[in-house]
């Protein structure tokens, strides 16, 4: 059993610009040169410039951010990328010069790459929850937003409690930072420590809130007295309104609360009630998890004193970047591509994609490479009931773990005649294109995502969603 409380952590080493000048200049110069080279080669999306620059000057992140007016870190299991992109878009719309890292590049090398690419006034940095400590050791963040802590790739961060302890230590290094925390996640609220500058966002009871949940839960033990928590209701996964029957621990009141939520396949709308007023928000992003992303980004923006009208305007048009849920048209078909990386992500994706949809063929492409998580047992922890109830024409299982996916579906009630196991990704797409339905829904793990997009493009698919402009300054 690990205990992480009361650790003494050295304060942030705010690096002075003067020391080791040569090393810093060399790091920045080489990093930018490599970035330029990649731009010439038209190969974006690499963290190599930052990786090399950090090799030369390990304190580079601290050095590069020391001259920013605000440094904001977004971390947590799900929703980091969407929250980061949305917040950056809002701040940019408010006239600020914003730098932020592009999708997935949330390890130190990716963060450094984004910071190298250009200079700004505000940095919005998506940081991997497992390596937050490496960043806060040198980056004196002004604000940390924590979206949620859900079960994700357990063979990497094998237990959430240890992860929470590591995040807690990482936050102790930046005692002056404002924390923006998800009130509905008991693991996240346990990170509030003894601070005054903590703000909570959360979701009031909705018509979709449930008294029980069929998902496998984590983090439902009281962080204070370690008894099982009780729930008045759940929103999704272990997010909801909880209390401890033994001690006084309970969901804190949300300073930024989403109320009167309406959900549809075309998006969501809700009132954001905050200390100074009320803001009506409408988003084209469907799904309750996106409500949380909007809530986190809008709450942070309000805390940063951004004009509420600007926030509402950006939220109303913001669509997630490539890969979160991308729609293509190809021949006579409409194909949707979506990333799933953990049980909650799969549960929510199925709930969102099946809602109100007619006959479609689903393609689940599961890999088990390092970036996907080697262990695929999490498939069995997802709530796949929305898929079972959907009028699916067929379910294709693909990828290195196609068989595991198929077995999971078979035992949950899908007839073998409705299942097709095609491990090869190319072959699975060709089979999907031959299906007698108009719609194809492709859910895939991390390493399959880029692959499927490439396969679809190679067959002439046209993206229906305008991708976000590149945000890290590289084309």
């Amino acid at each position: 059993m690990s205990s992480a409380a009361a650790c003494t952590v050295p304060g942030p080493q705010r690096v002075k610009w003067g020391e080791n000048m040569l090393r810093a200049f060399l790091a920045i110069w080489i990093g930018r040169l490599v970035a330029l080279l990649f731009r010439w080669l038209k190969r974006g999306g690499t963290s190599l410039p930052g990786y090399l620059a950090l090799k030369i000057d390990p304190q580079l992140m601290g050095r590069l951010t020391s001259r920013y007016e605000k440094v904001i870190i977004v971390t947590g299991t799900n929703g980091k990328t969407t929250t980061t992109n949305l917040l950056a878009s809002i701040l940019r719309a408010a006239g600020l010069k914003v730098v932020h890292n592009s999708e997935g590049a949330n390890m130190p090398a990716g963060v450094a790459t984004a910071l190298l690419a250009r200079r700004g006034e505000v940095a919005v940095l998506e940081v991997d929850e497992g390596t937050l400590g490496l960043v806060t050791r040198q980056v004196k963040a002004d604000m940390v937003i924590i979206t949620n802590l859900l079960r994700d790739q357990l063979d990497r961060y094998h237990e959430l409690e240890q992860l929470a302890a590591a995040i807690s230590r990482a936050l102790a290094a930046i005692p002056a930072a404002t924390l923006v925390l998800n009130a509905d996640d008991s693991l996240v609220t346990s990170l509030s420590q003894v601070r005054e500058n903590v703000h909570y966002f959360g979701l009031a009871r909705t018509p979709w809130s449930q008294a029980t949940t069929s998902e496998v839960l984590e983090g439902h033990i009281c962080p204070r007295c370690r008894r099982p928590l009780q729930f008045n209701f759940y929103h999704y996964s272990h997010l909801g309104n909880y209390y401890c029957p033994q001690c006084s621990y309970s969901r804190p009141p949300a300073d930024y609360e989403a109320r009167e939520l309406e959900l549809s396949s075309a998006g969501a709308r809700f009132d954001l009630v905050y200390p100074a007023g009320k803001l009506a928000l409408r988003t084209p992003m469907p799904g309750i998890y996106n409500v949380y992303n909007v809530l986190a980004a809008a709450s942070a923006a309000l805390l940063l004193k951004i004009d509420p009208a600007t926030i509402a305007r950006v939220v109303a048009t913001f669509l997630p970047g490539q890969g979160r849920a991308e729609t293509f048209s190809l021949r006579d078909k409409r194909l949707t591509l979506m990333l799933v990386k953990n049980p909650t992500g799969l549960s929510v994706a199925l709930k969102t994609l099946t809602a109100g949809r007619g006959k479609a063929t689903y393609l689940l492409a599961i890999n088990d490479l390092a970036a996907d998580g080697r262990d695929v047992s999490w498939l069995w922890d997802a709530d796949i009931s929305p898929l079972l109830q959907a009028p699916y024409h067929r379910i294709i299982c693909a990828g290195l773990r196609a068989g595991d996916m198929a077995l999971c579906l078979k035992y949950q009630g899908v007839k073998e005649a409705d299942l097709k196991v095609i491990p090869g990704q190319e072959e699975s797409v060709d089979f999907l294109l031959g299906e007698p339905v108009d719609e194809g829904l492709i859910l895939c793990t991390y390493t399959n995502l880029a692959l499927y997009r490439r396969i679809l493009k190679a067959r002439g698919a046209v993206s229906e969603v305008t991708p976000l402009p590149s945000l890290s300054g590289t084309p």
Partner: protein
Amino acid sequence: MKLRLCHLYPELLNLYGDRGNVLILRRRAEWRGIEVEVTPISLGDKLDPKAYDLFFLGGGPDQEQGVASADLVAKGPWLKEAVEAGAALLAICGGYQLLGEYYRTSTGETLPGVGLFAVYTEAGNKRLKGNIAIQVEELGTDRPVIGFENHGGRTFLKGARPLGRVIYGDGNNGTDQTEGARYRNAIGTYLHGPLLSKNPHLADYLLRLALQRRYGEVELPPLDDTLELAVNEAVYRRFLPTKGKW
């Protein structure tokens, strides 16, 4: 015919798809016309040793396992009584460790277990994780039992019979090639995946053990396991350290 299955701490010990095992047992019984009744038993509940044919105990994260362990040790005598009377049991990972004699933490503290299996566990530094295949003699087939393991503890046999011999992977402790433990009709193992999904031979073996207490030798009609066996073979071969060696 009816199978009475007791699922211990389903809301606490639920890592790595372990609940899938209960679903698989239920389906494989129901497909053969055997009725299945699953009873969840958790903190503070009484456990009637005579009421169940099969017990299932999964693994959990540290904190949930800590919460469950004290309660389980209190229920220990009932569980032992049931196993002595012939009930079958399947315990995975953390559940397996809790049913051993004790767990010694990295600080040297000794946490008592139920003592059903004559094994003990010590905290280790590096987690033992990855795909694993074992040979289980009782199954009477060369087909391996495959799964995924992920555990920090090293378990050592103190007289208990192992469930199987490691073909590849780490097993109980990464050193002696043993995996899991047996006592009468009880099985403890580190394999998840979930375990029974790709091992229909083991699932049926467990069903037979569970049913024989009340119904004697039971002949289970064969099912169409084409998919299960194909996945077992494909995953087994993919992770063989040197292809063709076996």
